[in-house]
């Protein structure tokens, strides 16, 4: 029985691109307990609904997080549209799916890179980020923004993608698929990665459900939980089934994200094939009055935007429950009983997005 010591992890730590603080209670090399503390990037942006017009607030909603940006704006707009009973044109719904899935691709590639970096696999980090630039280029060519798109608005989308451009995007993704497969092979079969991730940070199916885990964390523990299954937006017309892997360790979570890259490619392909012609937005008159919990699937899991208006241009309340917040209890559970050297890998395996979590 060793001596008990407490090691502070973060807020500034080489493996963390964002600040989160964990107090790790150690006994020798074993983590007995991890106590998270947040608040380093709490801005209080939910309060801004009282100062901004509900249409202008889309910009703020999009800046909750710079990685999940587009899907945040989709969730917010969808909530307002539901309250105001606006039906957006089909083309707009399909365009939202395309950009959402591009966001997922770029976010998963970003995460895969960071995950490799956390294990010291520098070359793989660079490979993932090189492939990610392809997604960002397509985003930039179609919306004007690399990470913050600003193309979603209440009532539809702000800009259209021409059918020629859609065809070339589709061709571009087909061309890059072999490279993605090659990279996926390294993540799923390389022995070094296997040794760092298999059996590490296990979260059982029951605990994942009890602790309210969402997204790849839940799906990596064998739970078929994906907000896209609710068929929001154009997802109801697309052939989609969630990637579910049992195992619950870091390897399973990594595998979910790797396989989701290909699901996203498939969904973009389907959306481009089925893309209807027509308008991309409808005029929005009046102000929202009512409430709605808008749920969508982000790269990190299910996000809930609670929106409540009283018929004025300012909303009464906007509350966001982001996937990282829901995954923190799961993370605490995974960390209990792990080795100190595995902490960075486990922390990254939930894909923490602190910007989202603290708002």
């Amino acid at each position, binding site marked *: 029985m060793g001596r008990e010591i407490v090691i502070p992890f973060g807020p500034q730590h080489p493996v963390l691109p964002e600040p989160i603080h964990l107090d790790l209670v150690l006994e020798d090399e074993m983590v007995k307990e991890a106590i998270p503390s947040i*608040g380093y990037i*709490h801005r209080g942006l939910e309060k801004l609904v009282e*100062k901004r017009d509900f249409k202008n607030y889309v910009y703020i909603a999009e800046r909750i997080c710079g990685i999940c940006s587009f899907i945040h704006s989709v969730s917010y707009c969808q909530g307002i549209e539901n309250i105001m009973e606006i039906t957006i044109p089909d083309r707009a719904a399909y365009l939202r799916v395309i950009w959402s899935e591009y966001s997922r691709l770029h976010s998963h590639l970003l995460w895969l890179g960071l995950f490799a970096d956390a294990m010291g696999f520098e070359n793989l980090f660079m490979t993932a980020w090189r492939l990610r630039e392809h997604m960002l280029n397509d985003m930039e060519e179609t919306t004007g923004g690399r990470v913050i798109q600003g193309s979603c608005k209440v009532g539809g989308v702000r800009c259209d993608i021409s059918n020629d451009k859609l065809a070339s995007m589709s061709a571009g993704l087909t061309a890059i698929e072999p490279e993605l497969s090659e990279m996926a092979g390294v993540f799923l079969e390389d022995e070094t990665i296997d040794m760092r991730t298999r059996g590490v940070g296990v979260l059982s199916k029951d605990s994942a459900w009890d602790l309210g885990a969402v997204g790849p964390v839940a799906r990596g523990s064998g739970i078929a939980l994906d907000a896209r299954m609710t068929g929001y937006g154009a997802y109801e017309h697309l052939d989609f089934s969630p990637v579910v892997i049992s195992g619950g360790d870091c390897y399973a979570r990594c595998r979910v994200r790797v396989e989701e890259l290909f699901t996203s490619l498939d969904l973009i392909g389907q959306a481009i094939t089925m893309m209807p012609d027509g308008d991309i937005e409808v005029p929005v008159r009046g102000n929202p*009055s009512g409430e709605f919990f808008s749920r969508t699937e982000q790269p990190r899991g299910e996000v809930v935007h*609670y929106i409540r208006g009283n018929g*004025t241009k*300012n909303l009464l*309340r906007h509350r966001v*429950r982001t996937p990282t917040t*829901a995954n923190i209890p799961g993370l605490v559970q995974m960390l209990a009983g792990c080795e100190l050297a595995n902490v960075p890998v486990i922390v990254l395996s939930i894909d923490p997005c602190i910007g989202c979590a603290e708002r």
Partner: protein
Amino acid sequence: MTIEKQTTVVIPVDLLLDEVKKMHDAKYRLVQVGCGQFKDQIEINYSFERDLVFSNLRITIDKETQVPSVTDLYHAAFVYENEIHDLFGIGFFGISLDYQGTFIRTKDKHPFYNTINKEDSLRPEEEGS
């Protein structure tokens, strides 16, 4: 476009733990606990989901009410309850992991409570909330 059905049941604070226990026994997942201030009233929503069915339990309280913590049933609620305590100043008793107001440290204490900005006085009266 599919718009999912969402149900909200308003319950008194005394019945909160019983109702949450029913949800827990029925294997519902705790989606979130969210709070909002509407005029003098505080509303707390407990959202649950099972098989893509989304339902809410809602309690309406004033600031002095002490709310029983649901962390014994859903441990994950400690994140939300500490957050509500820090942002709204609502007291919860029996939280399994109580940060005592240090979860989210803000410049002003309880920034979400009674801080509706001045332009609000120009707003028309709220309807039906």
